[in-house]
């Protein structure tokens, strides 16, 4: 019973928080650009509008993947926020992303396919770091369970500073922010039109937005895990750090160009390789 309530709460509040964050993001971005910006609730208006609109399809199956993707992302959020296994979280998250990009392929529309291709490339670029993040967390806490990781004496960040930096680096991919918004730029115009989401309209597009909200929270959830430990203080700190990281991403988004894929791939792999390996090696040297 408790679990059911918890699940329900997670399903409802995660996107709300994510949407709110996105709203603040748009507001802050606008301010950084010297504009007034939309109301904070704008993302919700957008989604509600999209839900009311007609949903066009280009073939019977392409919309379907978006829904499956959303389901898996929700599952990810559930696993993560109930303190489940971190590797499983990553795997299911990957699954969700894979389905999202399959939707791009399924529409068989030029820009969707190009977008899907780039999305795949981005996944390849950030996946090693995700993997190493899990590895690092396991290394220091000897468990894959998030609820155990966040209940240790010391927050993991103390042992994993480099991995944390690397993770924040690849977070940009997940949040689809410049410099790594190759496959689907949210607002800036780019060569792929709207990438994977090109062919989606109305309800399916709304679901893509909602998926993104979940993803935002999941992405920040990882940041949280780095900082939380068994005292309340660290949990508050973790939330603050999440917000700071998000703010940092906004500023980064507004002060960089979109890089090309070669650069995105090599940068991400290099950063993950160097930071991840270094951190793990140092840890094993001190023999945790």
């Amino acid at each position, binding site marked *: 019973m408790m679990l059911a309530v918890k699940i329900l709460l997670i399903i409802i509040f995660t996107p709300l928080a994510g949407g709110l964050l996105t709203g603040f993001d748009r507001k802050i971005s606008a*301010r*950084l*650009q*010297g*504009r*007034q910006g939309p109301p904070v609730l704008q993302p919700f208006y957008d989604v509600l509008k999209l839900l009311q609109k007609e949903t066009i399809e280009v073939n019977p199956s392409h919309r379907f993947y978006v829904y499956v993707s959303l389901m898996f992302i929700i599952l990810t959020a559930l696993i993560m926020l109930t303190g489940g296994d971190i590797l499983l979280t990553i795997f299911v998250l990957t699954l969700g992303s894979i389905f999202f990009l399959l939707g791009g392929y399924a529409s068989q529309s030029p820009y969707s396919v190009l977008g899907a291709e780039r999305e795949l490339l981005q996944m390849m670029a950030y996946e090693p770091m995700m993997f190493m993040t899990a590895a690092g967390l396991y290394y220091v806490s000897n468990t894959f369970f998030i609820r155990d990781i966040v209940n240790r004496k010391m927050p993991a960040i103390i042992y994993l500073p480099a991995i944390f930096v690397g993770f924040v680096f690849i977070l940009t991919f997940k949040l689809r922010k410049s410099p790594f918004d190759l496959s689907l730029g949210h607002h800036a115009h780019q060569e792929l039109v709207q990438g994977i989401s090109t062919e989606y309209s109305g309800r399916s597009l709304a679901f893509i937005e909602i998926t993104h909200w979940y993803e935002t929270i999941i992405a920040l959830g990882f940041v949280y895990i780095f900082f939380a430990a068994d005292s309340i203080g660290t949990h508050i700190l973790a939330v603050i750090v999440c917000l700071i990281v998000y703010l940092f991403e906004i*500023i980064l988004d*507004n*002060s*960089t160009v979109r890089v090309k894929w070669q650069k995105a791939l090599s940068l991400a792999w290099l950063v993950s390789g160097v930071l991840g390996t270094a951190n793990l090696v140092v840890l094993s040297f001190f023999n945790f």
Partner: protein
Amino acid sequence: MSILSMTKTLFKSIVHGPYTENYPAKPRENYERTRGSIENDIEDCIFCGMCTRQCPTGALEIDKGEKRWSIERMQCIQCGYCVNVCPKKCLHMRNQYTAPDTEKVKDDYVARISDH
């Protein structure tokens, strides 16, 4: 080599606050010279037809008999050429532009017949 060099401008604009003019909540003051829309002091008009002939888009129309001078608002490019050629100088360029509308607007100016 400089990364995040944009941040300076970004923070400046945070400090400065938005540059947005709050249109339409705060209506805009147009400049004196702003080319908005053509007005006719119809009472002075002699319906010579200079303006209709010279208007490059054919937005103007006169009806000498009914003493009507009319302008297709959605056709006028605000070039002001009619103002230039009008012998009576009864046309002038107002600095308020025509508002968008759901259909094409045509404004009629009819002179009181009795005057002439």
